[in-house]
């Protein structure tokens, strides 16, 4: 089944293009669904988040809010951004820099009862400061922190 040369080249190109376009379409479709968006507590209050959708929640850990559950490995605390607050529960070993009053970014999802169930807590990693212009404080500052936040 030898094919005409020109014909073959065209077929190959079409095959490659079809696969690439297929990949791009599939990627675009999946990204709409699977990318996890960044929310501050006030965003959640204002816009609401569908329960079960993977998101990142960023804010400050409210003072006096960290409580350990009886099993010894679950912590409950409240994340706030000055305007709103969200209760968070996390099962696991907390990172070193996770303390009351510190910034935190949690990966996870909202449950039906309005509690954020975190799979992962990310705390600020490198404080060795290299000059870089910063955004406004408060909400924007927290978002900035989310940008520069990496996992311990």
């Amino acid at each position: 089944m030898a094919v005409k040369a020109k014909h073959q080249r065209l077929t190959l190109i079409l095959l490659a293009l079809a696969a690439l376009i297929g990949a791009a379409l599939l990627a675009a479709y999946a990204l709409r669904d699977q990318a996890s968006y960044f929310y501050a507590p006030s965003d959640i209050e204002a816009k609401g988040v569908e329960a079960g959708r993977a998101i990142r929640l960023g804010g400050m850990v409210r003072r006096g809010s960290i409580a350990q559950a009886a099993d010894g490995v679950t912590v409950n605390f409240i994340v706030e951004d000055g305007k709103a607050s969200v209760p968070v529960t996390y099962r696991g070993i907390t990172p070193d820099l996770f303390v009351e009053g510190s910034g935190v970014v949690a990966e996870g999802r909202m449950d039906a009862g309005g509690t954020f169930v975190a799979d992962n807590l990310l705390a600020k990693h490198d404080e060795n400061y290299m000059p870089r212009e910063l955004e406004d404080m408060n909400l924007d500052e927290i978002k900035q922190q989310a940008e520069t936040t990496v996992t311990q």
Partner: protein
Amino acid sequence: MTNWKLWLPFGLFALFFIVVAGGLISPSDRTITSKMIGKPLPAFDLPQAVADRPALSTADFNTGTPRLLNIFASWCVPCIAEAPHLQALSDAGAEINGVAIRDKPEDVAAFLARNGNPYTRIGADNLSSVQLEIGSSGVPETFVVDGQGRITYQHIGDIRASDVPMLLEKLEEAR
């Protein structure tokens, strides 16, 4: 096959370039003035960081004379770079208070012995709590605080030689 199809990869790359270049340029466009300016210092009461300097609390700022509040740490590289300029500020008559972030007394003492000690008071902020409340997101940062404990200026990053006269001027303005 016409020629324009061969330019497709180039076009895709150009698109990539535009997106990435946009991402790279946009953050540096946001020049920001701190929201803390004009606000009183948050209330804090920090313990002593080294033996030969007194501790630091909000009450200490209510003396009528403006001063600099410098956020530093012994483990921070730019802090070493700015040490001579802080000394210059101190020599020019500025009063400087320090807050050592997540540090140990012996490390702070070693840092000061090596790089000079322009501070009149140093508080130890072991949990970065004051740092966060004052709106500082990195080390080093320097605040100008007036005689009533209000923040009048925030300098982000290390102090360079060229910043020294500017900071002295800001201190004068805060008087």
